[in-house]
């Protein structure tokens, strides 16, 4: 039994390293993203990765409260993503037309 627990601990450590690297890479896209929609997609990915991180922490530390934290964070992250997408759409509608593809089509 101790052997299997140790196996889970090692797997959790490797997964935590992978998730940290993934969040850092997603932050690079959040920083350089050429469009605002790229940044929204990057934020969505980062929030999903944080939910996965919390699930791994629940196994790694043995604290079952992290599962509730993960569920609550998934709910709030979904609301945040929806709000950002609606905001982006409404902003573009108020401006009337947009900046990116019109320039290519007219030229």
């Amino acid at each position, binding site marked *: 039994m101790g052997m299997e627990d140790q*196996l889970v601990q090692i797997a959790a450590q490797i997964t935590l390293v992978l998730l940290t690297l993934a969040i850092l890479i997603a932050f690079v896209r959040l920083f350089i993203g050429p469009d605002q929609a790229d940044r929204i997609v990057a934020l969505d990915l980062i929030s999903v990765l944080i939910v996965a991180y919390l699930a791994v922490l629940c196994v790694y530390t043995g604290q079952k409260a992290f599962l509730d934290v993960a*569920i609550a964070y998934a709910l709030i992250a979904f609301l945040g993503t929806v709000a950002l997408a609606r905001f982006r759409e409404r902003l573009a509608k108020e401006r009337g037309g947009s900046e990116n593809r019109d320039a290519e089509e007219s030229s």
Partner: protein
Amino acid sequence: MMAVLSAVLMLAGGVFCFVAAVGMLRLPDTIIRMHAATKAGALGAGLMFLSLACFYVELSTTLRAFAAILFLLITAPVAAHLIGRAAYCTRVRLWDRTRIDELAFTCDWNEPESED
């Protein structure tokens, strides 16, 4: 035995999340990047919760883990749809090797009305 299964599922989820982040960095277009982010991200997080349900074999924790998986599987397509529609209707720049643009005439509510 359940611990081994839990470790394998957790590693698979970690690899999926990492691949999603690499695709986020390297794919050429917002819409294509969204494919990597939402699909692989939701699958990775779902595998993590499945691993958690295999690690704690109790009714309350496993039920909550499955509820979390269900919630992720319901909300990920909705969020992806909203982001994709917002990105497309604000005319985000597509990849220059895009051949088929099936939505080309559906999002015309921000065009000037002088066409017809």
